[in-house]
């Protein structure tokens, strides 16, 4: 498989050292401020979940919109590269970069909240899944947006809505249709793992709970792979 776009994303990120530093430091300062404050753990966990999800969604949609506006994506597609494959490379490259940039923030949460080893260990896969889902969501909103401002708006609204359906902003009630929806939501493991790591009394996350949201994320990625050529702006060509 041709991974040229993946490599270009990494090289670009490594070249933008100032941005890289900001992307590490800004969430770190934000997370540390909350984690070390007397804010209730449940609120802190919700805030961390929102921050991480928006970090992924914005980080995916804005570069895609910018590259679409400049004509770079059209140039890529006219070389014969598969548009869906191009989007997947973009999603996985930015999600991996996000994970690396957010890792120090996660470490601060774990240390500041005194999380147990199993709790801490669950945050990483849940964050990885949440970031892939967030970046995929960013790619989808980028396909609908006609400007960076629209992209930011659509990304924020879509992410917040999905976070709400993940049970981030309320106490889940077992047996309801919302609870079923939550079980499918790729952001739910992220929120649950952060709740547990923050010491909010949430249960230690059973790795099996990752399976369904992971399946949903894979399904979304397959849709993006198949429909990528409609998203990039060559009218499906």
């Amino acid at each position, binding site marked *: 498989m041709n991974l040229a776009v993946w*490599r270009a994303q990494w090289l670009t990120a490594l070249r933008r050292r100032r941005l890289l530093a900001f992307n590490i430091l800004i969430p770190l300062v934000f997370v540390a401020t909350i984690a070390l404050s007397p804010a209730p753990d449940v609120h802190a966990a919700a805030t961390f979940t929102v921050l991480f999800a928006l970090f992924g969604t914005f980080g995916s949609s804005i570069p895609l919109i910018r590259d679409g506006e400049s004509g770079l994506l059209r*140039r890529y597609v006219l*070389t014969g590269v598969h548009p869906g494959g191009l989007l997947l490379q973009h999603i996985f490259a930015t999600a991996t970069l996000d994970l690396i940039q957010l890792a120090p923030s996660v470490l601060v949460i774990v240390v500041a909240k005194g999380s147990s080893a199993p709790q801490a260990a669950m945050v990483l896969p849940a964050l990885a899944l949440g970031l892939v889902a967030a970046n995929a969501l960013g790619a989808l909103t980028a396909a609908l947006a006609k400007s960076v401002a629209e992209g930011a708006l659509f990304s924020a609204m879509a992410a917040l809505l999905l976070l709400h359906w993940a049970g981030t902003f309320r106490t889940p009630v077992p047996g309801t249709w919302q609870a079923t929806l939550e079980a499918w939501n790729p952001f739910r493991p992220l929120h649950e793992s952060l709740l547990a790591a923050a010491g909010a009394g949430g249960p230690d996350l059973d790795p099996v709970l990752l399976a369904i949201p992971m399946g949903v994320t894979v399904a979304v990625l397959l849709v993006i792979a198949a429909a990528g050529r409609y998203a990039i702006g060559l009218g499906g060509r």
Partner: protein
Amino acid sequence: MFAATDISYTYSSGRKGLGKVSVDGAPGDRVVVMGPNGSGKSTLLRLVSTELPSRPGSLTLFGEACESSMGDFRKRRDLRRRIGIVQDTPIHVEDLTGLENGLLFAELYGLPRAEALSAFSALSTSLGLDDALDVPTREYSYGMKKKLLIAEALVHDPEMLILDEPALGLDPPTRVALLRMLEERSERGVCTLVATNEPELAKKLATTVVLLHEGEVVAHGSPAELLAKVGGATRIEVHVTGSPPADLGLPADIVSIQLRPGRIIAESRSGPDVLPQLVGAVLATGLKIERIELREPDLTDVFMLYTGQALNPEALNRPLEGDSSP
């Protein structure tokens, strides 16, 4: 190599981009499309490059109907990999160096890295980019970006080239190098479709010239055939102080003359040989001559002949509103 038949395009605003244009090119052909801004040159190139769909009309590339290939990824990929494209605006990954951009596009075209490096190095040397290959393209000038774009379009040795204003922004040595590269490829059977507003470039490069006006073809043929239509008259502009009188005595070889305040525009079939007589006639009226300009007929005159409008108003000293066709 390619055959576009009655291809059309209407923008989402409803503006006609192209209306039933037919154009084709065989291996080795260099088809140059000329026309003023907004005439549909870039739209035609974008249609032939498969970037835009033509509805109605049909496009055949390398002997295959294009629309049927577009639905199948492998066919689409294989078809696009046989084309090299230079867009009018050079777009790159700005944080990557010239070399990294070159290798990125070579890899996207499916070239193995070693082959890509060798081909791209040779092209960047020919285009005079060697010294800038380690520099991020955000620091490139427009001309350097254009050179890089050309190298990227040629790196996979495509069978067909689609170039939108390829010489725009290039320095004279690079223009010469570009022409040489295109001619060499043409001799090897590469078909080239170029959009330009530069009559000199078109004359040097084209085997066929297509003149577009308001989205339609107004003339096509070899440069020699088209230039023959304007009869080879040399255009002489005599800039004078004051307005020339209507009864200016004309030398016999002057085939047409326009008298404007401060300017006399004559067309001569005997080239500049008529100049002494013309100057004598002007001085005899008591006018003072400020300067004289001579211009051999070129493809802008052919365009003027067919449309009554200037192909590239900036290229002329002054637009000639109200000029009648010869």
